């Protein structure tokens, strides 16, 4: 999966939870889930669970801990997919 494909998939996953449309339109690797997209922290749990379902992976809490930005989420997903 290319970087662009992964970003596109993550964009689809976060869409139902975002509260800042402008930040969502301009979503990039550097986008922060909470500070930029204004995703409610309880919904960040849903984002993590949706990522697990979409990529058929399991994210331990130690990895989840870093997932506050698109870049961090991409790193974890890539790591988990490579380990499959």
């Amino acid at each position, binding site marked *: 999966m290319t970087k662009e494909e992964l970003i596109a998939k993550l964009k689809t996953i976060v869409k139902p939870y975002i*509260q*800042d449309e402008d930040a969502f339109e301009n979503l990039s690797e550097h986008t922060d889930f*909470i*500070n930029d997209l*204004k995703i*409610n*922290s*309880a*919904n*960040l*749990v*849903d984002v*993590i*669970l949706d990522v*697990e379902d979409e990529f058929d992976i399991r994210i331990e*809490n*130690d990895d*989840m*801990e*870093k*997932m*506050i930005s698109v870049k961090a989420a991409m790193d974890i997903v890539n790591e988990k997919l490579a380990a499959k």
Partner: protein
Amino acid sequence: MIGNDVVDLNQAHKDSNWMRPRFLEKVFTQNEQALIFSSKNEHQTVWLLWSMKEAAYKIYVRQFGERFFNPKRLECAFESKTKGRVVIEDVVYKTTSQYDKNYIHTIASRLGEKGVKSSCLKIENSSIKLQSQLSRKDVLEAYSKNQNVHNNSVTIKKDTLGIPHFFQNNKKQKETLSISHHGHYCAYAIL
């Protein structure tokens, strides 16, 4: 140091399904899950624990300058219906929560400091932009009244960690501020 968090229980009901597979395991320790399932109102207990974790997390970020997303790292225990404590590694925070069937508001403090000024208001409009504006206006009014200064000279700015601070004539003030809004509720705590 303080942190606060408000949960609109009706909004939480609409936005989050904590019964979703793996949700509870990601967020709550075994002890906390036992507290939830032995309580009379599971929905309320889930969000009471959540608000305690969030309020304590806000102090932790202030204290150690590190953000992370792992609610399970903060473990809650109840001391009474309204008082509790949240432990993360060897750090303990004290919490006080106010709640009814519509909302939960928790204030966490590092040392159980006295003299915290707080407010939790219900607002009609629940759009996030308006919430943010209203809670800032409310908190600025309270602060400037207390400091006996004109509220035009005080502003609130967030730092890179997302922590809000008071500035008066562009000078950062010593008081710590925590703002929270969710659904139809806006809350703040100042110390």
